[in-house]
Each structure stands twice: as structure tokens, then as C-alpha cells.
């Protein structure tokens, strides 16, 4: 059966090896599922959260993974949308399937974690039924679920390209026709993901009671709304590229032309530098103009483990540095520098999501209030790790049984 499912003419590692890898992943997932069950049954006291840290590991990982996932699919937008005008973007077609898979796993994974994050999962649907239009979280709930659907729709045709499934005529037809309308989905998807990414940024940005997180902005949208979108698209494609790179390393095969990486590098370089410039401007305004107006100086926002290093790491090491590497042609030439930059880029954006969901609320606002430190328990780490394992699982399966990379065959003719 396994053989039959593997795309024609492609080499894959032997079933036992793959089985072992699956076993490992399922192990982690099982562990996480168990931990999750405990959280649901015993209530949230098993987590490290408390009344000073309403948001913790769950939210952080969700924000990060969604940023990367949604951003990943940004390359879909570039391919289906913009390539009409910029033919050079056609290159991305060679990696687009992977981008879809990444987007899909990230979103579905994030959704699963969200169920644990709320105290009354049975009421999760209130978000649609009794929506408060003012709440950024409402925006998130709507977008995240709509977008998850879109991603499923986009993932389906990829799945349908499986050799065995293609044998069934109607399925094949269905799959093909889906492909043709994919552009529309890609565009709606992108719009949703933009909006949704923005509202995620809004979540922290609108909190006018929390000077650390609060940002002024356009209309109802704080600057974080736009910064989150930018940072997502400035890191997502890099994420896809990095995963692709890892796949190549693991499988020992060439999956896409080097030119694709270079192109992504170029795109990300531009986007990241735009983002980082704006981020610096935003930080300067926030730290030097807005906060003093609220009675606080930047120093009040950094303490102990949540020290100023966060800012330096996020903007300097993981922002300016990778941006420069990616803009620098020679930098893109070297695999080490290119993928290093990709990695830093991703780390930086993840760090940003961490800052916006934990230190931002650890900082005391009342003058007589005190700093607190949040330490996640295994009941938070396990499910999040399981979620990552799930992503790895789907990606591995997709790579093994679906023709993700149109050029794989040619590239590996020996």
C-alpha cells in the first residue's frame, strides 16, 4: 500500500524508518493530548497562568505559529495574485504546495490549542453567537475559523494529487477544477489572513489600560495591527523556505531550485527591512512620546528576566541583522547566511509575539503594584509541543505521499 501511495518516480525513505519517525511524532502528540485532557478535566489550575498572567504559553505559541503559517501563505498570494504582473514570481510555484501545507497545519494546530486556552470550551461558539464587534478577539475568532476553512479548501487539491486518489476519475476532475479556482481562494485567504493577522496584533494594541501594549493607530486599528501583518509576511515565506531547506537536508534531495530560495530571500529582505524600520519608529514613538504621556518611561517596562535584552534581541539581532544579510546579494548566495537569516527572522517575529503576550502584561501599571514572573507548567508546554509535532507529522506525510514539489523529479535525476 505504502509504495502505491508514493508519487510515481519519486524516492522516499524506507517504510520502517518513516514508521519510526511517525512513532516518535505520535508519541509527542499523545503526550500533549493527555496533558490537554488533564487541563480540560481538572480546569486551568494545572497551568502556570494566574490573575496577573491571563495570557501565557498557549497564546504565545498560537500567535507565533499563526504569524508564520499565515505569512507562509503570503507566498500563495504572490504566486496566484501578483505573478500575473511580476512574472518573476512564477518561480514560487515550485514551492507553493509546501506553503499551503504549512499554512494548513499551523492554523489547524493553533485552533486545537485555543480550545485549551479558554476556561469554558463548551461555550467557544458564543464568539459567533454573541459577538462583541468591538473586541479584537471577535475579529480573531471569525477570521481564524474562516481562514482555517479556506486553508482546508486549498489543502484538499494538494491531497487529491495523490496517485491512488487520482485513479478515481471524479476526484481527479474535482481536484483539477479546484486548482483553477484556487486563485480566488488564495486572494480571499490572503485578505482574511491579513485582517486576522492584524486583529491578532490589535489584541495587545487596543489595551489602553496597559501602556506597555497599547498603541495609537489608524481608525480602530492600532499600529500593532499593521506591524503584525508586516512582520508575518516578512517571516512566513522565510519559514516555508526554512522548512523546505530542512526537508532537503533530511531527504538528501534537491526539492526546489536554489533560485527559489534566492527569490524568497530577496522578497523577505525587502519586507523585513520595511517592517523593522517601521517597528523601530513605532518603538521610538511608544517609548519616548506615548509612554511618558501616560506617566511611564521605557525603563519601567523592562525588569529582571523581562529585561531590555528583549528589545535588543527582537529589533537588533533578529531584525536589522537578518534584514541586512537578505538585502546583501552575497549574503543570499551563502546557504549558511541565507538560512541563518531566515532563522533569525523567524526567531525575531516569534520573540515579538512573546513580548506582546507575556512581558507586556507582567509590567505593573499601578505604581504600588509589583512585577511578577510567569513559568509555564508541563500542561502548557506538552500541548504546544504536541501541536508542533502535529505540524511535522502532516508535513512529513504530505511530503511522502503527495507530489509537493513539481521539480523534484528532474532535480534528482541521477
Amino acid at each position, binding site marked *: 500500500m505504502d509504495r502505491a501511495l508514493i508519487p510515481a518516480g519519486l524516492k522516499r525513505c524506507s517504510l520502517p524508518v518513516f514508521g519510526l519517525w511517525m512513532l516518535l511524532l505520535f508519541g509527542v502528540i499523545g503526550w500533549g493530548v493527555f496533558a490537554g485532557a488533564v487541563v480540560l478535566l481538572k480546569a486551568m489550575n494545572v497551568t502556570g497562568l494566574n490573575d496577573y498572567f491571563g495570557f501565557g504559553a498557549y497564546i504565545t505559541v498560537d500567535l507565533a505559529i499563526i504569524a508564520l503559517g499565515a505569512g507562509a501563505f503570503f507566498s500563495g498570494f504572490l504566486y496566484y495574485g501578483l505573478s500575473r504582473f511580476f512574472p518573476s514570481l512564477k518561480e514560487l510555484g515550485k514551492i507553493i504546495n509546501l506553503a499551503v501545507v504549512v499554512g494548513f497545519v499551523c492554523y489547524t494546530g493553533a485552533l486545537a490549542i485555543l480550545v485549551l486556552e479558554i*476556561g469554558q470550551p463548551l461555550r467557544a461558539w458564543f464568539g459567533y453567537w454573541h459577538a462583541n464587534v468591538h473586541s479584537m478577539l471577535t475579529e480573531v475568532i471569525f477570521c481564524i475559523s474562516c481562514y482555517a476553512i479556506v486553508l482546508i479548501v486549498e489543502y484538499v487539491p494538494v491531497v487529491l494529487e495523490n496517485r491512488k486518489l487520482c485513479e478515481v476519475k471524479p476526484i481527479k476532475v474535482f481536484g483539477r477544477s479546484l486548482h483553477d479556482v484556487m486563485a480566488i481562494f488564495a486572494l480571499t485567504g490572503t485578505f482574511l489572513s491579513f485582517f486576522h493577522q492584524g486583529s491578532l496584533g490589535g489584541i495587545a494594541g487596543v489595551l489602553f489600560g496597559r501602556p506597555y501594549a497599547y498603541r495609537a493607530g489608524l481608525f480602530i486599528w492600532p499600529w500593532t495591527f499593521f506591524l503584525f501583518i508586516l512582520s508575518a509576511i516578512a517571516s512566513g515565506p522565510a519559514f516555508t523556505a526554512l522548512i523546505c531547506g530542512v526537508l532537503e537536508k533530511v531527504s538528501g534531495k534537491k526539492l526546489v531550485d536554489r533560485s527559489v530560495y534566492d527569490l524568497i530571500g530577496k522578497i523577505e529582505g525587502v519586507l523585513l527591512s520595511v517592517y523593522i524600520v517601521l517597528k523601530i519608529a513605532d518603538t521610538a514613538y511608544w517609548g519616548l512620546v506615548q509612554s511618558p504621556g501616560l506617566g511611564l518611561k521605557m525603563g519601567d517596562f523592562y525588569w529582571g528576566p523581562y529585561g531590555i535584552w528583549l528589545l535588543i534581541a527582537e529589533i537588533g539581532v533578529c531584525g536589522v541583522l537578518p534584514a541586512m544579510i537578505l538585502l546583501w546579494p552575497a549574503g543570499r548566495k551563502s546557504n549558511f547566511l541565507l538560512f541563518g537569516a531566515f532563522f533569525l527572522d523567524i526567531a525575531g517575529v516569534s520573540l515579538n509575539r512573546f513580548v506582546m503576550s507575556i512581558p507586556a502584561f507582567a509590567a505593573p501599571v499601578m505604581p504600588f503594584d509589583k512585577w511578577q514572573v510567569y513559568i509555564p507548567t508541563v500542561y502548557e508546554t506538552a500541548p504546544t509541543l504536541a501541536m508542533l509535532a502535529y505540524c511535522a507529522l502532516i508535513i512529513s506525510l504530505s511530503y511522502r505521499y503527495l507530489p509537493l514539489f513539481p521539480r523534484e523529479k528532474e532535480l534528482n535525476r541521477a
Partner: protein
Amino acid sequence: MSEGRHAQGGVRFGMVIDLDKCTGCGACSVACQAENNISFRPDESNKLRSITWMSIFELNNGGHYPDYKYAFLPRPCMHCDSPGHAPCTFVCPVNATTRDENNGIVTMVYPRCIGCRYCIVACPYHARSFNWWDPKWPEPMESMLSPEVSTRMRGVVEKCTFCHHRLLAVRSKAYKDGTDPDKATYTTACADACPAKAIVFGNLLDPQSEAARLSKDPNAFQILKKLNTKPKVYYISAHDWIRKLSDNAVA
């Protein structure tokens, strides 16, 4: 537009707490627990998970012994009057917490709350507590529960309601007696209990009410005024070092 909605209603319930009268005895906090069926656990020493609607913060002048001074600040929900929305009501995705624009009370509906804790994150006063555990009363202490306030279930957020069930009670009586329910006034459990009479509760828009008078006292102040959350809870102190602690002032 929210401003417009905001303006309506001649009633804005608020509170004035005189920190110079307060001895920090905690009667307000306990009376509140008894009035509102607040659950308790064997170990309440983790203050970050201890449910209290009226928490008592300790302020100190940063001095050194023997010039060290401290005072106590009872902190109910501030029932923020910020235009349109309070920090918490603005973010609740399911309208579980809203502000009644007829009287300014920020309410909380437990069966609606999905427990996302966004409001907890939004509140700079830490006025909100999450039910981390199933509420359990040791036998036979359930007999002590008041039917006037529903007990909360696990996984939802709760906070001070300005004892609005007492408002409902007086309004109900007003309807029965045929008097104007909108004129009906009441006090909260904490204000009733305070043995030093440091807590005064009333309609801030009624010039006759003592609360309104005190809220205009030269020594009256709000906490974190700069955030423009417009708390309806005022504090009074003649001590500069206490008033200094009312807001962040960049040195």
C-alpha cells in the same frame, strides 16, 4: 457616538474611599466575600490566584525605619467610565462584561463568559479574578451562601459588581411602592461594613450625595488617571506621599 450613549442617564454610581480613615482592617473585603458568595480554598496565600473583589493593597512611602510609613488601599472594581467602553468591556468577545449606561455599573455575566481572560489582561487594576478551580465549600458551609448572588462555575472571570443585586432589590421595592425606581439609591456591602466609615458609596451625578461631594474634595484622586480609564472609585488622602502613588509620574 459612544459619547452620546455615554451621556444618558442621571445616575453614575461611584465610591469614595478615605485612605486616612482606613486602618486596613479588611472588613470591607470580608463583608464582600460574604455578600457575594466568593469561594475560598484552604490555602489562600498565592495572591495571584486568590479570588477577592475588594483587595487591599499596601502603600508605603519608601522611607527607612523609623521614618517608614505605610497605608492601605482597598481596591474594588473601578467601574471605569472611559468614553464608550471600559478597558475590559471593550475587549470581551462575547459581551459577558458590559457597562450599564444608565448607572455606570460594569457588570459581569458568568454563564456568558467563555473564560478567555482577555479582560483580566486588559485591566490595569487587577480587579478581575479567574476561577482557576471548581468552587467548593466545605460541608456544611454551603448553607452560608446567599441566594441574591449566583455562585460562579470554574473557568469564568468574576469581579466586583458594586453589589448591583442590592440596586435591583431597591428598584424592585420602588416598583412595589410605586415610587420612582430611577431615584432609588443603595449602598454596597463594603461601605456598610467599614467600621471607620471610610467608604462612601453613592450617585456621583447627584450633587446632594455625599459621594459626589467627597469626589470633588481637593484631596480626592483617582488611580491611573493618565490612562483615561475614568475610574468611578475615588480616594482621599491628605498625605502627599499617598497621593503621589496614585499615578505614574515620569521622574
